[in-house]
């Protein structure tokens, strides 16, 4: 399809493990965003890329979280030494430019830390 694609759709892992979550944005979209959504809450901003560079990473909760977008398209969110509090739905969005354009979301990765 032509939408934002996120894989895996579900991920269950044990506390302390490392996880990678992948986002394929809409083709041609230069801006890419990661959000985290807990049950009953709105999405919370994590990080935003313009091309290959992280333009704003102020939402990353701590240094266990890291994201890359090496070729300006696919992005990977990486979480080290996972904790139970990291359990949430991780959403990715993309937009054509960074100038007040609608962000289009994928269906997210549901991460469960046991």
């Amino acid at each position, binding site marked *: 399809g032509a939408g*934002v694609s996120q894989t895996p759709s579900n991920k269950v892992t044990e506390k302390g493990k490392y996880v990678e979550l992948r986002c394929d944005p809409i083709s041609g979209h230069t*801006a890419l*965003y990661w*959000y985290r959504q807990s049950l*009953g*809450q*709105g*999405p*919370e*901003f994590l990080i*935003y890329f313009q091309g290959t560079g992280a*333009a*704003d990473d*102020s*939402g990353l909760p701590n240094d266990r979280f890291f994201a890359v977008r090496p070729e300006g398209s696919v992005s990977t969110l990486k979480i080290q030494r996972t904790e139970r509090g990291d359990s949430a739905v991780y*959403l990715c*969005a993309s*937009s054509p430019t*960074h*100038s*007040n354009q*609608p*962000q*289009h*979301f*994928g*269906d*997210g990765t549901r991460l469960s830390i046991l």
Partner: protein
Amino acid sequence: GESVGLHLPTLSVQEGDNSIINCAYSNSASDYFIWYKQESGKGPQFIIDIRSNMDKRQGQRVTVLLNKTVKHLSLQIAATQPGDSAVYFCAENPPVGGSEKLVFGKGTKLTVNP
């Protein structure tokens, strides 16, 4: 529609009625606002957006109203249908360091009764 605590505000309407979902935003300098619809297990779906230089914008069956004086946003859905049942989020883009991040409210759950 304004979020209070951890419980989603709810709105229940009859099929065919008009729905109004309200949202209070936080930053008086925000210049871009957007409404999303989120169904269970899915990512947020773009409905309509509005820039701060406008006070009303219409789409297909939806209208967004912006009142900057009281920092209030509303979404009006005409002739509500069962397929409109979902959680609705408003979001703002606060002008912080040129970031395009969105700040979401906690959402309103709309239930449309046949």
